């Protein structure tokens, strides 16, 4: 932050997160620490450190490295910088855990598979976590475990509806238009409804996931986070 020359708004940071996810995450990882000696998620840059330096690197690339020049505009490069600055600030300290022990907790004490699926095993009701370690930062994984309501990704919101004949259905909204909606219900059935046949429908305000803050010890949480962070897909 010492070198920052711009004031960034929360909207900048959110927009920057989306751009980072789309353009940077594949190489740098969700925590920005996958490139040796370039832990950009923690403010460790090899080529310059001012906002303008970083914008230049993002746009022009670094010769002789896989970081090629891009067609990212200057304002967009700047909001990626906004996100990198916020990452460094929010990185915090995460206890180190054991992924193997975390896997045991995931499948046992944590009963995570009753909602989540990993590499073909577990329920489909909640988000599939097979690649979650490649998509979310460690701090985000930890936050989701202890405070599931803090951030609910729009695509993962649960919808509750009541049909005209009084039946209640809860599920994950997959699609909708002015006349219909499609969801995966709590029995893992793909279902489509005509809105004219519904008495009401609305998003469930809170996450369906319980908080593990008091259910697991801090070491168990660290193990579970380590396991989730290790999930990078097939």
């Amino acid at each position: 932050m010492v070198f920052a020359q711009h004031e960034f708004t929360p909207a900048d940071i959110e927009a920057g997160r989306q751009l980072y996810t789309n353009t940077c995450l594949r190489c740098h990882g969700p925590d920005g620490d996958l490139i040796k000696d370039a832990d950009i998620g923690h403010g460790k840059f090899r080529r310059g450190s001012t906002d303008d330096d970083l914008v230049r690197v993002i746009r022009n690339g670094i010769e002789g490295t896989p970081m090629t020049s891009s067609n990212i505009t200057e304002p967009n490069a700047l909001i990626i910088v906004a996100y990198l600055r916020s990452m460094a600030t929010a990185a915090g300290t995460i206890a180190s855990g054991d992924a193997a022990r975390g896997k045991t907790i995931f499948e046992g004490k944590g009963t995570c598979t009753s909602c989540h699926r990993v590499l073909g095993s577990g329920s489909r009701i909640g988000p599939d976590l097979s690649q979650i370690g490649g998509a979310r930062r460690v701090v985000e994984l930890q936050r989701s475990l202890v405070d599931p309501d803090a951030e609910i990704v729009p695509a993962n919101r649960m919808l509750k509806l009541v049909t005209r004949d009084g039946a209640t259905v809860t599920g994950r909204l997959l699609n909708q238009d002015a006349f219909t909606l499609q969801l995966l219900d709590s029995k893992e059935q793909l279902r489509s409804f005509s809105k004219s046949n519904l008495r009401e429908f609305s998003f469930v305000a809170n996450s369906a996931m319980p908080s593990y803050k008091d259910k697991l010890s801090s070491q168990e949480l660290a193990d579970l986070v380590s396991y989730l962070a290790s999930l990078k897909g097939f």
Partner: protein
Amino acid sequence: MIFSHASVLTRQPVHGARSIKRALFLIVLVAASLQAQVSSDRLLKSNQEPQNWLTYSGHYNAQRYSTLNQITPENVKNLEQQWIFQARSLEKFEATPLVVDGIMYTVQAPNDVVALDAATGRIFWTYSWTPEAASRPCCGRVNRGVAVLGDTLFMATIDARLIAIDAKNGRPLWNIQIAAPEKGYAMTLAPLVMKDKVIVGTAGGEYGIRGFIAAYDVKTGKEAWKFYTIPGPGEPGHETWPANSNAWEHGGASVWVTGSYDPALNLTYWGIGNPGPDWNGDPRPGDNLYSCSVVALDVDTGKLKWYYQFSPHDEFDYDATQVPVLADIQWQGSPRKVMLWANRNGFFYVLDRATGQFLLGKPFVEVNWASGFDAKGRPQRVPGMTPNNQGTLILPGNQGGTNWYNPSYSPRTGLFYIPTWANYSSLYVKQEQEFVEGRTYGGGGPRNTVPPGVRTTVNNFAKEDEWYGAIRALDPHTGEMKWQFKMTDVTDAGILTTGSNLLFSGGREGYFYALDARDGKLLWKANVGGRVISGPMTFSLNGRQYVAVAAGNSLFTFALKQ
């Protein structure tokens, strides 16, 4: 067909006035069946032959209102699909077809003209033009349709050519280059034919072009006149560009949607696009005429009769590239020739189309960049509402409260109908940018205020109060909204209204639907499986009314079950 009518004629005894009238009627029918040439007179009176659709907007007044009334609110539920034309193109299908005496002419994007049997969808011929690789339209290799006069069709191309084509066999008659595609000039609009001239304008407002509207002789393609949408040195309006600067030479002000025409006033009206650079007004202090304006031009000379600027010194990409809709209505107790205009900038306008006088301006969506108008109709900017380095939240957002999507005015209901983006905003960011010929010249850009992916083919992200699409019906006398039909997703679809109080439109959700034009009640819908990014139209053939609309990559036609 020709023979059957002829034989009917020969069998009819001609006795008395009634028989003569009937014989004349049959002669008209025969003439129609013979596919008579589309004369200037027929274009002037196209609203008297609603079985055809002879110009981009159906008639010179651009109301997109047809008197056809076989399909009614009561029987519209019996519409069924008649045929589909699947384009060999994955570009957006934005063209409104013409129908001339049973033959439909449309454009398969980018620049193939197709002649179809309007009853069966069978292809008579296709004329393919391969645009130069240098062409670079900003927002899709699209085309919005053709114009016709006599036996000649006219197509404007994305490599800035105007091509005349024989309507009978699809052979090119002449082909002229009207601007340089490598400099960013392109044409995506349907031309408009008036008298002996075919008129077009150039897109390229994101490339720092100098826009113009030009008229060409229909027989030869020779230029008759050219009106630059940015006045040159010594011309009135040039002072609205900075002195001692060449900003005016690459100030944009493009034209990419077809105009309209009032034959009695001999004026043609065209909407002009944004100034460049789009989002950074610093290099171009001043009002930047005639960007974001409507201009009224003398058809014979191209001379400016009047103009009205909707968005002086625009910084929000608020192109005034909407179709000018002409209506004759009672205005405060007196008949008045007006122009109805729902602008991308979020305001609905009523102008006197003889003089350009501002009569009414009222928001039809949420607006925060202007608070109202002075007595002359100049918008009053809200201080601080301008793009900056951090991003300023502006309503409406970059796509506007509406855009080029065809509105409709029904003289039957007296309502004006607008494809609307409601509650929609963008964060506007400004950046410095040098002008380089042929390269984009935006000076910043808009950012979405809702997460990406919210508006995709899979729509599971939308929150209840975020942007939504709607058809909004306004009373043009007051600008008051009478009703709205809400969609979950936003809409790029045009609107058609008919003599039986029907309104046809669609949206991004892939539906084509009919509403009651009086109250917005949904009467019928069909899933067409792709976004509707075009204006629906209607025609009649062999006593049967059809409705046609492009959606996804196909053109669909519907008629009542038989």
